[in-house]
């Protein structure tokens, strides 16, 4: 069936089978940052942003995105690099395979949560598995990133 959607603000009109997963559809359109780590909505690697909410594209049919805006990391290169640098400074992008899904969720978290506590951060990111890093480095990166963000906001307020 025919669907129309926007990937990173670019319009796509395409024929898809009713059972095509959004994950596969996105990859077929060159959005190769989107990874599959499971097929069971357990790992978070396939996280993309639908309208303004993070979703798991492995458990979402492409047809359901009809008429909607999808954002992948290809559309958030600057934001990804900004946080990604913190991750890289910890060495916490070990194999990096989980990084895109994780970063997409971190970027959503930053928008959704105001001054989150450590527990809130962990809870928000719980669905993003990583088999390499043991999570501590990711947490250090998130905390440092939030600190920078907050300082920036505070300094904006000051001036």
């Amino acid at each position, binding site marked *: 069936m025919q669907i129309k959607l926007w990937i990173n603000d670019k319009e796509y009109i395409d024929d898809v089978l009713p059972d095509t997963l959004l994950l596969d559809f996105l990859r077929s359109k*060159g959005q*190769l*940052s*989107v*990874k599959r*780590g*499971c*097929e*069971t909505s*357990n*790992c978070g*690697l396939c996280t993309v942003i639908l309208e303004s909410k993070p979703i798991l594209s492995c458990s979402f049919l492409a047809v359901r995105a009809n008429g909607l805006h999808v954002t*992948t*990391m*290809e559309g958030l*290169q600057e934001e*990804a*690099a900004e*946080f*990604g*640098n913190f*991750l*890289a*400074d*910890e*060495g*916490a*992008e*070990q*194999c*990096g*395979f*989980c*990084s*895109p899904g994780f*970063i997409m969720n971190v970027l959503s978290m930053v928008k959704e949560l105001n001054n989150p506590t450590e527990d809130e951060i*962990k*809870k928000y*990111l*719980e*669905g*993003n*598995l*990583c*088999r*390499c*890093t*043991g*999570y*501590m*480095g*990711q*947490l250090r990166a998130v905390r440092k990133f939030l600190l920078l963000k907050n300082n920036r906001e505070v300094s904006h307020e000051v001036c």
Partner: protein
Amino acid sequence: MKFVNKGVRKKDSIALVTGKPVYTDDVTQGCNLVVKLLRSPHSHAIINEINTEKAKKVPGIECILTYEDVPKSRFTTAGQTYPEPSPYDRLILDKRLRCVGDPVAIVAGLDEKSVDKALGLIKVKYEVLEALLDYRTAIDNKIIVHPEDDFKTLCDVGADNKRNICSSDAMEVGDVEKDFKNCAHIIEETYTTKANNQSMMETFRTQTSIDTYGRLTVITSTQVPFHVRRILSNALQIPKSKIRVIKPRIGGGFGAKQTIVSEIFPAIVTWKTGKPAKMVYSRKESFTNGSPRHEAEMKIRLGADENGIIKAIHMFSLWNAGAYGDHGPTTVGLSGHKAMTIYNAASYKFENEVVYSNTMGAGAFRGYGATQGFFALESAVNELAAKLNMDPTVLRMNNMLTQKNVGKIMPTYYNEELKSCTLDKCMLKAKEMINWDEKFPSKDIGNDKVRSVGCAVAMQGSGISSCDVGAVEIRLNDEGFYTLLIGATDMGTGCDTILAQIAADCLDTDYDNIVVHGVDTDLSPYDTGSYASSTTYITGMAVVKTCEVLRDKILSEGARLLGCKPEDAEFDGKQVVCAGTGKTISLAEIGYASYVGTNAYLTATRSHFSPTSPPPFMAGLVEIELDKLTGKIDIIDYVGVVDCGTVINPNLARIQAEGGIVQGMGMTLYEDVKYDENGRMLNDSFMQYKIPSRMDVGKIRVDFESSYEPTGPFGAKSIGELVINTPAPAIANAVYNATNINMRSLPITGEKILTKMINNGQN
């Protein structure tokens, strides 16, 4: 040292954090045949008849292969140096199926839908055989997993396929029985560990094609590209010279990708059809037919005198190889040789047997058998401490290898000499970090909760002594930058970066002045691959040696261009200076000159192997909270202090340690490959096979107590595998300190703890 010992960013970090297409499936987009397998529904069966006629007619299907269409020579898929110690017990497709999921037919087609349809249309008549599912009963069982006559081993590993024995071995140092007679305390217990899945986030995947020269190009997510080339040549019976293997970025391996898993099937499809093909393992396939850690049963006898000085250690390891013997004979060796070596004793005995059964084949997993061994032996040592009413950290300080033992010959470790060790410092620092003396053994904090601490130590090796080789080549380019060609595989651990850091310091140049190239077997110098914790230690040393040679060449060439003698010239990394005349020529100019006319193109290559495999050490201490009503364990704090010699990149080393500890926690608390009564894996998805999430791991703190390993680059030893070894025994010890219950089998679930407490009348 400007770059060594600094936490520089990984060379590939920006690509990774911005989601660039760098992994196998990303770099092979385009028109590929989709390759899938029809897999056996039975754990033991013979294919009596297989009919693919109908399936072949499905539109889009290009190729269907059965056991009749593939070479008949047996091989192993274990990525090890030739001659591999793993038995040659496989065919690409066999008439006999030895586990659920064993390949029955290979199907390749234009798209997934047609392939799936064809898979459903293949008609197979199986003769279902009784299966051998309990490996403890394997030896001399009436069911034989490998009755074939062309079973063979290239090394004498004590195999006997007609008795289901994949390998067996025994050794004794001193006289164990005599020493046990003089022991005041003896612990004699059996410990078991389960098969665990590596669960790297990127499953197995491979793309194959034929290049312009008619050769087979294999792009694959592997830790062992050069072994892949040899194994494919073996399995497909095509000359090695016709195969090229390329390794892009890898989404984790942890040993799983030291076995070749997804490579053979698309390779044979491409070789037969001439068309590009790709196989991507589903998560389920990765679970059911990957290469998990060997399930093991270990019997320990441990004897000590009245003061708690360990006198004798006797260890017997029984290993479940499953359907195929990959890495069986070698992993089992580490369970004893590594675990026992860490304790000074008068005598040691180590016996082992690896047996076949009809569960899935096993393979390498970080720690490589040492992990199972340390769970058993460290648990026994903790039981000894309890029996002696001694603090287990104190018992260890009195018995383990420490700085005092440097210079000691280690009889159970192939008589290698201990040249560096700060394990005592590691232990003391870890105790301080976790505040052990105050917390040991436990505190009831009310609400039916107990807080307790537990401890363990571990060691590993650095490479395989006198066996594995790493080579590198470094070229000087025009403008004075270098290309570092390596055959070692960066699987996320950062070896591209670490080797560049080493090279930068050896060449007195900037880290960014060195371009690293990942592995392509056509171009890269030979390296056995990334396993056995070898890369920093072995390939790192090859970098050091190569840089020395290249520096000499740069110096001579600079001197020649300046018209002076090399002995009168000096190279400081930026320029060559002639002492007499004061004339200089910059590296950039030498680089340019080397590409013109009669001047020499400057390149050097050296390989390195090591006659020793120096052990890195670690002390791991844990604090848990145990709920006495439910048996549930919460990890509060895990402290790991590591002696890996000189730390080349503290950031990357820390992440390795944290990651390894978390994998160890998963193995300890819930990771458990389970089968139903027909040998089918029950928990074959992340829904059921749970790996730790960020909510499960508490706080992890890692620190280092450096030593200087004289045989390693800049004094470095390894870190990759060591770090998975302490969680299981440390957590088991903490459970004991909370409940007085010894958990001798993994995983340690709340259910098991509670059952034991109820049986003990504690609840």
